Structures are given as C-alpha cells and as structure tokens.
C-alpha cells in the first residue's frame, strides 16, 4: 500500500487499519535506521515502541505538508537523537565518555560479531559530530536521497552534501589506519 492510500484510509476513518499498514511498511526500515544510531538491539527495540506510539498519537495532526515517509523518518530521527542526548547527559553525570560507551555497545552487540571491518566502520561513524553522523547514516546506510534528507532534517541539500563529504573523509582516514 502506498503512503497516499494509507492516508486516504486514515481519513476514511479506518485509523487502526491505516496504522497497521504504516507498521507493515516502516517497522523494519525504521528498526535499521534507529539501530545505526543506538548500536544496540535492546535500546532500538524500546525506542521503536516510543516512536510508533508517537506516530499513532500524532497522526491525527499530520497536515500533509510533507510526505508521510519524511514525516515518519523525522520522528524516528528526532527520537533517536533525543535518546542519545539523554544518554550523553547520563554518561556525563557519571564522568563517562558517550563515544566510548557507544563503542562498547558496538563490541557487545552480537549482530556484528565476526565482521571487524563493520565494527571499525560503526565506531568511526560514532566518533563523528552529531550532524555529520546523522547525514552519513541516512545517506550511506539508509540510501536516502539528499532531497529526502533535506526535507527530514530541514537543511539545504548543499549543506548536507558538505556534511556528508566531511564525514566520509573522516571515516576514510580512520579506516585507512585500521586497514593498514
């Protein structure tokens, strides 16, 4: 079912059915999107619940100014960044480093065991500044177009291209050290 059909279903009063279609279309995609940020299956699973609760409760206020696809990704991205921000504050209160905490999670995460290069890539991504990291995850891992990312983050395509370029260069430098 397309986004347009989902919205028509919702407007026709079939709200729960429309939400079911959103879950069907987006749950797996958003899982991978969020997991790249959080680097933990458990955290991703918890946050996905929050994200979909937010989608359900805000769907009635969706005006259709943007596409459903970018609106849903915007919610997921904002929630992921907020989650990381809260984790960062908690880590700071315990005098811990957030990036080292994320690197620990990457090592502990059963999913990437055996693929050391993937771990190195994910660690390099986590060391990036927040904006560059967000753009890199959305562009490289999620294969989103610059136009879609621009709509989701509210940033110009030019600025996104620059962020992606800087991010790629930093990651390459890190990986070249690792691959030597």
């Amino acid at each position: 079912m397309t986004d347009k059909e989902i919205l028509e279903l919702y407007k026709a009063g079939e709200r729960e059915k429309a939400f079911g279609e959103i879950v069907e279309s987006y749950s797996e995609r958003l899982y991978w999107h969020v997991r790249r940020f959080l680097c933990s299956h458990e955290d991703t699973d918890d946050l996905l619940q929050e994200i979909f609760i937010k989608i359900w409760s805000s769907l009635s206020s969706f005006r259709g100014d943007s596409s459903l696809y970018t609106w849903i990704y915007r919610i997921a991205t904002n929630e992921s960044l907020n989650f990381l921000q809260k984790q960062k504050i908690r880590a700071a209160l315990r005098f811990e480093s957030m990036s080292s905490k994320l690197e620990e999670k990457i090592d502990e995460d059963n999913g990437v065991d055996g693929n050391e290069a993937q771990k190195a890539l994910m660690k390099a991504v986590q060391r990036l500044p927040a904006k560059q990291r967000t753009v890199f995850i959305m562009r490289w891992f999620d294969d989103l177009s610059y136009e879609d990312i621009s709509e989701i983050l509210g940033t110009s395509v030019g600025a996104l291209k620059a962020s992606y370029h800087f991010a790629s260069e930093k990651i390459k430098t890190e990986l070249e050290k690792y691959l030597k």
Partner: protein
Amino acid sequence: MLTGKDIFESIGKDRPSVPEGYFTDLKARLGSIPERSIVRQGPWSSVRPYLALAASFVAIAVISTAVLKNTTKSQSPDQFLNEDSYAEILSITNPEILYSEPEFEMEELTDDDIINYLIETGVRAEHLAYAGNQY
C-alpha cells in the same frame, strides 16, 4: 591499498543480526499500539486532567493556609477585650500621655530606711552595728 569510496564498498552494508522471528513479533507488538492506547485511555482519562487541576488548587489552598497560620500571630478574644478596655481609660483630652514618660520623683533614702530594711530582711545585730558605723 583501498582508498576513497572503495573502502566503504569493500566493507559493505552488512546488517547486524536480530533474534529469529524478531520482525514478525515486532510488527505484532507495534500493531497493537492503538488497542493498548484505547484500553489505557478509557472514560477515566478524559476526567483525569480536570481532577489533576482541581487537586492542584486544593493543594495550593492547603499549603498557603498552613503557611499563613505559621507566620502570623493569633490573637485570642481576651487580648482584644484588654486592648478595648485600655483604650477606654485613656485620657481623651490628653492622648499624648500614652507616649510620655511617667513623672514621679525618687525619694532620697535615709539611714533609718536602710536600717529598717536590714532588720526586716533578717540581718544579724553585729552586721547591723557595722552598718550603723557606716552610716
């Protein structure tokens, strides 16, 4: 050596693994959010914000009453009566009397006054004799 985009291509986009059947379970859990939110809401949820508002007003009233009671002195009806009766005996023609110092002269004590006082308070004779010599 690999450089540029080739590095990313060589690493690829391998996804971390998830527990078996996870996405089927996830979709079922997420799909039940509308039902759960309806159950959670119920008729009680529409009244709850108003009750919370009313409770906060009551709490403010109770706290402010307690603070006022503790910070202001209470006056019994007797005190009011005393003040009234005191006002009645004040001179109406000369109210400044209330603020003026009482006027009376201290009488000079004589030797006899002192000796009488010492006798009344039980001072012994030898001490009185000493006092007599003094005065």
